[in-house]
């Protein structure tokens, strides 16, 4: 059994180590580099969205037959990244995985920002984004309502619900920590701001009892929610009749891929941040090791999905399925399929077997970045299938333009900008749950998890 908190921490030192990152206002050079890079890239998003709104979606490379292009690739990529946060905070909570405690806050924040980045793409992909509210059913003079038999309408509800529930879950988790910051802060403005955000939390026994129940039930609700969200996202593809999209393996295949890329993003961010803020006591090598193992497992699930796609196309004796498979592997976009196999299977699934790699910051970072690239290519490969439909007369080519890339880089900017602001202003590890996790003789709750006392 590896210790989840290194060194002899007590209640006060846990609060100081985590809370002072926020309260001190002193930030390492790494923070400034990350924040300013994110801020600069955010400007790229602002410019490309402004140009898009002025000119229309013609500035992108989308065409018929590839009508979806980068917008949906990036949408699926981002929302998949978000899923790891919910997996860590909800599913691992239900499974009594105590190592989740030091990464759940961080991962939940990542979820929220990733879903925000994801949400940008469908909205700006609408020709007239100012009518976005037409996606929602509301009484209107035209008497027109959405078509609820379409997975695209399900997607609207799935993603907005996912965002709202993630935000509620995150905020409820933050309230006791905000109260701790309120009481720990020395500066007056900090006491006022954190005091307002803490909504008068005073750690009352009766409040805690309700709180724990809500937290547990939110975990229980988020678990099927996260599975349903990516299932619905996969339905966007699977409910169509495009060859290789119309497959029953899509929902589990997408969910596994989402967790794969999401854990990669969590680890890719955690490695530099724990280094800059000297939080190795809480984000231990053991945490990295466990998360790398999750990536290894989900990586094999995804690889099975690639195998199954090819196998079913061959075994199904469908001319179109098999023809499209050959086009996917050896056609004009075949290079992207091989990139996908290299980055998603070749690099991580060979390296992550080694404990040395899983416990080496550099190599683990390499694997994570490789997975993030690979999972992006997976969505690219899926979307580009549109260029090879059943009938050769509807075949076409697709090439992203400068503005496609600019919007993608810009969404990364939005993510990093928000994430570094979060690191600056909110505790990135749950102070309360870390205190609960401390052994009893160090003043903690002896690893009592919220699950165990929520009647």
């Amino acid at each position: 059994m590896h210790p989840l908190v290194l060194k002899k921490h007590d209640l006060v030192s846990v609060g100081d180590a985590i809370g002072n990152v926020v309260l001190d206002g002193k930030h390492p050079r790494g923070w400034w580099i990350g924040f300013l890079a994110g801020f600069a890239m955010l400007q790229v998003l602002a410019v490309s969205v402004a140009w898009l709104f002025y000119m229309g979606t013609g500035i992108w490379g989308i065409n018929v037959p590839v009508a979806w292009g980068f917008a949906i690739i990036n949408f699926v990529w981002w929302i998949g990244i978000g899923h790891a946060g919910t997996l860590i905070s909800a599913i691992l909570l239900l499974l009594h995985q105590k190592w989740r405690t030091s990464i759940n806050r961080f991962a939940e924040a990542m979820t929220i920002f990733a879903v925000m980045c994801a949400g940008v793409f469908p909205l700006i992909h609408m020709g007239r984004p100012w009518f976005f509210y037409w996606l929602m059913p509301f009484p209107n003079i035209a008497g027109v309502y959405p078509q609820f038999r379409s997975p695209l309408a399900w997607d609207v509800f799935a993603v907005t619900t996912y965002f709202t529930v993630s935000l509620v879950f995150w905020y409820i988790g933050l309230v006791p920590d905000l109260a701790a910051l309120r009481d720990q802060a020395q500066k007056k403005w900090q006491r006022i701001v954190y005091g307002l955000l803490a909504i008068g939390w005073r750690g009352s026994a009766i409040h805690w009892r309700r709180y724990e129940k809500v937290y547990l039930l939110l975990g229980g609700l988020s678990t099927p929610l996260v599975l349903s969200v990516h299932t619905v996202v996969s339905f966007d593809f699977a409910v169509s009749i495009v060859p290789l999209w119309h497959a029953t393996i899509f929902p589990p295949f997408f969910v596994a891929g989402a967790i794969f890329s999401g854990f990669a993003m969590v680890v890719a961010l955690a490695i530099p941040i724990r280094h800059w803020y000297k939080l190795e006591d809480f984000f231990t090598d053991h945490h990295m090791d466990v998360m790398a193992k999750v990536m290894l497992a989900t990586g094999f699930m995804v690889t099975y999905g690639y195998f199954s796609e090819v196998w079913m196309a061959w075994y199904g004796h469908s001319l179109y399925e098999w023809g499209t498979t050959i086009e996917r592997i050896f056609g004009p976009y075949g290079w992207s399929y091989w990139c996908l196999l290299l980055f998603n299977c070749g690099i991580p699934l060979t390296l992550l077997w080694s404990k040395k790699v899983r416990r080496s910051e550099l190599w683990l970072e390499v694997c994570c970045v490789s997975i993030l690239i690979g999972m992006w290519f997976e969505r690219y490969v899926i979307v580009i299938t549109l260029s090879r439909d059943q009938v050769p007369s509807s075949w076409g080519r697709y090439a992203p333009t400068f503005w496609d890339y600019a919007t993608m880089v810009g969404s990364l900017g939005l993510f990093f900008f928000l994430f570094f602001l979060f690191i600056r202003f909110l505790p990135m590890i749950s102070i309360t749950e870390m205190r609960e996790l401390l052994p009893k003789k160090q003043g903690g709750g002896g690893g009592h998890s919220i699950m165990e006392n929520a009647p």
Partner: protein
Amino acid sequence: MNVDIPTIVPLVNTTVVPHGPDPDAPKPFAVLAGFATADDLIVATRKAVAAGYTRLDTHTPYPVAETADAIGYPKSEMGAVMLVGGLTGALAGFFMQYWDNAWGYSLNIGGRPYMSWPSFVPIAFEMMVLTAALSGFFGLLALCGLPRLNHPLFNSKAFDRATRDQFFLSIEAVDPKYSSTETLAFAAGLNPLSVEEVME
């Protein structure tokens, strides 16, 4: 004819409170005792309950379930709140789709029946999760009386440590057994780190 008779206002305020305390003086809110560990708090809470106090609360940096049990608050209402919220949302979500697609704006999609309920399941599910989560959140706030900007306990200087490293027991003045002197003495006898009477 009505004649207003002017009231005679005395030049000197002659009102005298004959007995009893000044009504404007701060009233006691609770006796607050701080303990070093959760175990000490649990023992103290059990003692206070055994001594006949009923209006108690504890304030801890992380949940200490045993104190809630001792106070006699064994089960929270949140499960019921979220169940009702979730079921309402699921039904409303389903009915919304049924109404919109079968009655309000009937769409014939590939000859499927208007009431093609399997395709209404995903949104009904999402609506259930959404409303259950929101009713949990707002129900929690409402039942706990939050958000609030202040609370009498925050008048205590020591209470800052309730979110840090101390575990507090408060015996509230609304308790029928409460008496400033006796309750203070009782709390001091529980071997706390600090004990004080907090004013409203």
